[in-house]
């Protein structure tokens, strides 16, 4: 406990130091306007990384002042959001923004590149991060738990945000690795917050798998460097094109495996549903929204910029199908809503990989749109689940029930994003899926058509899974389904179940006894039809130190950001036109490859790089 606490307190600090060194370099932050662009816009580029890092240090120093800490993080993330949106708009006008950190030449130094894709990702992710932060601040205020290890929550969360921004902005494979490590190290701390038994267990899986993927990534960078002598994303296309086919394939595979683990693509996805559900609700929400998408972003970036000929597209298509189908079948089997959503998260990564693998501009654009949609929706769902857990005392469908009657607001908040996830028209999930299906049909190959079928089936199964969750948790009478399950686990689990059953009155302080008692009291209320709606609450009331009133009232501060994110998800539907245009523009930019290289290295270098359409086997499709 103390070990974890002390280390967790030290980690963000260490990271802040290390990372501050990395992007600033020896001469401080020397900005250099490239290619005659206005100086003002590139100045913004490092801010999404720097501001959260500085704020993380500040928040750590303010560890004893809760409110000041919360204010610092909120302000920092608001600045990041404002910067990102400003950059997104600026990129439309002035083109890709580039900053070579420290004034080193782009080839040997670190460059931060903000093109359409990066800024779009950055805007959505920072909006979601800010929403989750407000939610967790409200949760902390509602719980009033002083002395808990939350002092490290804010600094760590800010480092996570900085890592995500760094990964999105990185113009360099190694800097991408550093970004990944920042967000991973922060996520380790957040996932094991409090160091309880369940979290340490889940954390072990997560940490080991993440480290393994990082090592694969690092090895891949070493190989890329050995083959080309650079890790710069703008220099690599030209040098990789000159390489032997076999070597290039090996490098592509190595990078794909590394990013595949992070993005939770099927054979490499088993770690995700195992580790995410145990974390606190806001943490799970932000992980579900962002971390896998950073992996997807890295796949998009490398597949288009570095390996445009798409020799692994068939493999990616198969993998995408497996991710969708296996993921959603896993979701159908779950009885805990948190785990169910973790499985849908895995499953829907398949859609994005599908879009990437089709390889046409339309496919890429739909994949990008889908990423934006999915970040918002998945985060929102996990946040709502946090509220459900507070209100109903559990996230298991066996114990929940009657939530819609208990709290209609929560019902709406859950229902809208759930239907959005399943892809009910006219919501953004539907638009994204239609875009992908159109791209698949336009491609016309056998595999893409199979994928089209697969994605429709997955969409239907998603609808089945979330409808099941809705029915059992929100519509059914409380705990009617729980009886068999509960007696069963008593049977299975312990000879002392009988003693617990007999001693309903005296609720022991021991935790497993409390847990059994919850089932028992739920059974008791079940007799009483009038009290049916209150049944879900009884379980919560068993918790010895929390009064029912505290449990039943969901703080407004937590509902507001959740509602805001639901609204953001809906606005994606309303703004689908402009959003799709941005997605198409960035897909086109990715497909041409030259704009990226031109922005970083200049026109001469860009001329030596062929656009995807000329490299690929057939025009328009890689």
């Amino acid at each position, binding site marked *: 406990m103390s070990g974890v606490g002390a280390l967790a307190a030290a980690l963000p600090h260490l990271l802040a130091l290390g990372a501050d060194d990395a992007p600033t370099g020896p001469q401080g932050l020397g900005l250099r306007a490239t290619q005659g662009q206005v100086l003002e816009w590139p100045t913004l580029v490092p801010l999404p990384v720097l501001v959260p890092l500085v704020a993380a240090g500040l928040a750590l120093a303010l560890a004893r002042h809760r409110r000041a800490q919360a204010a610092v993080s909120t302000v920092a993330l608001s600045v990041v959001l404002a910067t990102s949106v400003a950059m997104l708009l600026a990129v439309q006008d002035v083109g890709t923004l580039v900053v070579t950190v420290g004034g080193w030449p782009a080839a040997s130094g670190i460059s931060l590149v903000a093109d359409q894709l990066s800024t779009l990702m950055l805007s959505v992710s920072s909006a979601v991060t800010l929403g989750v932060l407000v939610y967790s601040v409200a*949760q902390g205020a509602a719980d009033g738990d002083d002395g*808990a*290890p939350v002092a490290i929550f804010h600094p760590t969360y800010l480092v996570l945000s900085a890592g995500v921004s760094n990964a999105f902005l990185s113009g360099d494979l190694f800097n991408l690795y550093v970004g990944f490590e920042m967000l991973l190290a922060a996520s380790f701390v957040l996932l094991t917050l409090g160091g309880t038994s*369940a*979290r*340490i267990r889940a954390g072990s899986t997560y940490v080991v798998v993440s480290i393994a993927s990082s090592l694969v990534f690092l090895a891949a960078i070493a190989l890329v460097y050995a083959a080309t002598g650079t890790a710069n994303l703008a220099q690599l296309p030209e040098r990789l094109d000159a390489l032997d086919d076999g070597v290039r394939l090996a490098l592509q595979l190595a990078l794909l495996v590394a990013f595949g683990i992070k993005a939770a693509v099927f054979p490499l996805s088993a770690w995700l549903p195992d580790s995410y559900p145990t974390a606190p609700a806001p943490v799970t929400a932000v992980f579900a929204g962002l971390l896998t998408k950073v992996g997807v972003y890295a796949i998009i970036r490398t597949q288009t910029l570095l390996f445009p000929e798409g020799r692994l597209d068939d493999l990616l298509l198969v993998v995408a199908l497996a991710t969708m189908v296996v993921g959603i079948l896993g979701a159908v089997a779950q009885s805990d809503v948190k785990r169910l959503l973790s499985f849908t998260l895995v499953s829907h990564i398949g859609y994005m990989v599908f879009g990437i693998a089709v390889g046409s501009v339309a496919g890429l654009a739909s994949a990008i749109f889908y990423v934006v949609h999915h970040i918002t929706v998945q985060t929102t769902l996990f946040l709502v689940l946090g509220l459900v*857990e507070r209100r109903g005392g559990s996230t298991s469908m066996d114990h929940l029930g009657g939530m819609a009657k208990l709290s209609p607001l929560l019902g709406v908040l859950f229902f809208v994003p759930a239907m959005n996830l399943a892809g009910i028209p006219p919501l953004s999930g539907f638009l994204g899926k239609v875009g992908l299906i159109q791209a698949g049909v336009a491609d016309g190959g056998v595999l893409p058509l199979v994928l089209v079928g697969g994605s429709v089936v997955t969409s239907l199964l998603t609808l089945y899974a979330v409808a099941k969750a809705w029915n059992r948790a929100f519509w059914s009478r409380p705990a009617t389904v729980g009886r068999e399950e509960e007696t069963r686990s008593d049977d299975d689990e312990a000879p002392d179940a009988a003693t617990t059953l007999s001693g309903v009155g005296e609720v022991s302080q021991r935790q497993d006894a409390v847990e059994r008692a919850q089932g028992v009291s739920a059974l008791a209320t079940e007799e009483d039809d009038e009290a049916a709606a209150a049944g879900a609450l009884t379980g919560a009331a068993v*918790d010895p130190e929390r009064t029912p009133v505290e449990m039943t009232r969901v703080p407004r501060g937590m509902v507001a950001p959740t509602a805001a994110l639901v609204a953001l998800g809906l606005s994606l539907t309303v703004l689908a036109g402009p959003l799709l245009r941005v997605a198409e523009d960035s897909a086109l930019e990715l497909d041409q490859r030259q704009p990226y290289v031109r922005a970083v290295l200049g026109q001469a270098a860009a001329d030596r790089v062929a656009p995807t359409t000329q490299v690929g086997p057939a025009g328009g499709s890689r």
Partner: protein
Amino acid sequence: MSPALVLVAVVFVLVATGVYLVLERSLTRVLVGVILMSNGINVLFLVASGAAGEPALVGSAEPARMSDPLPQAMVLTAIVITLGLTAFLLAMAYRSWQLHGHDEVQDDVEDRQVRGRAVRDETSGSYDPDDEEAPVEERSEDRRRAHASPSPRDPSPHDRAPDDGPRRAAQRREEGP
């Protein structure tokens, strides 16, 4: 440029040993495996940087005869990162030992429950709770796991109890936002 064979062999041995150790269940062994593997990959960077040359200090030698400094900078960064992660893993293994008396990674409880339901065919429409016959090995395995690790410090090992609200609530008190 021809890579040094000795270095390649070192990379091979370190990474192979590391992979073997990472596949173990005990976190301490995993930790040692991670350290070996990351050292192996750091050496791989040295292979990538080509033959050793003069120190890359301005004015000390001709640029053509210098070593490539960039991979060394990358290795340094990687070493620092690995150090932080190692410290974290170590703390986690210690915490695991504190809680359970060992540092082995357990299976997920909910996973086992879902698997158990599938084995009992409970999810099918024809399921009847009265004629339940849970397969013997499933139950005995559960029991063995449940009693395998009594810890002196923690009288209620959470990981064998079914997933439930009050525990979550109790955790929430500890963890804050």
